[in-house]
């Protein structure tokens, strides 16, 4: 029987090697291309009709746009809207990667690119770099006052290292959360799936019992849809919160 982790394996489709580096086009790359293509198609098709009374497609596209714009405004202020394209792209990519990963196997198994820490960490690392650059560009070296809360000097000796580690831990927590959620959810689905098959093929009263894991898998699937959306939202809103730190240092919105 297939291992529940088999769905996460990366296989090269077109092997490419440049200077000893393996940069093959893998199934992960393929599904990333698919995610980007579907997102682009969905948004351009949604926006193309430009009707005053929107169609369903247009409505969803507009809703997602307004949703993110509102989120940025409330978390990072109006200044944060400058970074709308970045955050919107991030949100849509994560959301569609999560949702496409949940498609049932139709001859081939959809690959969840966000279940790999290499992918989520790259995204989180871009956020991290952007926050540093925005902070330095806006406040110059004053950006580093982010690490020094307003407390007596003696406390700073302890607090500055803590704040620095806390700051450095952001991309880790951002990426680990998304990847762990996806990995756990899909593993759970696969394990329950093997229970259904094993019980159903056992025969007798046992095959009757296979209804229990089947019900569980249905419930977990529904939960996974919620998590797919929630994690994309969390990723985007935390990006906004970090951005707010860089834009406004110690103020709050």
């Amino acid at each position: 029987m297939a291992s529940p982790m088999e769905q996460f394996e990366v296989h090269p489709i077109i092997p490419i090697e440049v200077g000893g580096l393996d940069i093959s086009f893998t199934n992960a790359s393929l599904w990333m291309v698919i995610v980007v293509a579907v997102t682009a198609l969905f948004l351009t098709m949604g926006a193309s009709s430009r009707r005053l009374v929107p169609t369903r497609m247009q409505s969803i596209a507009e809703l997602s746009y307004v949703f993110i714009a509102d989120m940025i405004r409330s978390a990072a202020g109006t200044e944060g809207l400058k970074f709308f394209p970045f955050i919107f792209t991030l949100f849509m990519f994560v959301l569609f990667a999560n949702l496409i990963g949940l498609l049932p196997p139709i001859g081939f198994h959809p690959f969840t690119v966000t279940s790999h820490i290499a992918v989520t960490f790259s995204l989180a690392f871009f956020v991290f770099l952007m926050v540093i650059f925005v902070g330095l560009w806006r406040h110059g070296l004053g950006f580093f006052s982010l690490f020094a809360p307003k407390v007596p000097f003696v406390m700073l000796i302890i607090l500055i290292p803590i704040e620095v580690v806390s700051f450095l831990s952001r991309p880790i927590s951002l990426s680990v959360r998304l990847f762990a959620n996806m990995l756990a959810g899909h593993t759970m689905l696969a394990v329950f799936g093997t229970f259904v098959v094993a019980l159903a093929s056992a025969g007798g009263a046992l095959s009757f019992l296979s209804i229990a894991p089947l019900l569980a898998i249905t419930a977990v699937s529904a939960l996974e849809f919620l998590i797919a959306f929630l994690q994309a939202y969390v990723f985007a809103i935390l990006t906004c919160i970090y951005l707010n730190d860089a834009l406004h240092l110690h103020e709050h919105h």
Partner: protein
Amino acid sequence: MAPDNSDDSKAQRLAELEQRLKEARGRGEVRHTESPPSSMGIAFRLVSELLAGVIVGGAIGWGLDAFFGTAPILLIVMFLVGVAAGFFNVIRAAREMNEKRPKG
């Protein structure tokens, strides 16, 4: 009756709509679309914040030890700093969650 499309009446109708929306919001008919995060979401958020602090702190300590050859002093120190940073993260995240929750 054909709708009057002069700018004045448009502005007036817009103001009326605004008023009706405000009343509906007051009655709780138009709900805020943002749903509270699920308990599992909150748990995942807090756990990952704590873990990230500890992992980063430990990793920095390990790296510095390897660099200066002072094993295991810096690993221990930075691990403790990482634990503290993890708790900082958790407290900060929890505070954010409380701020977002509607009052009352």
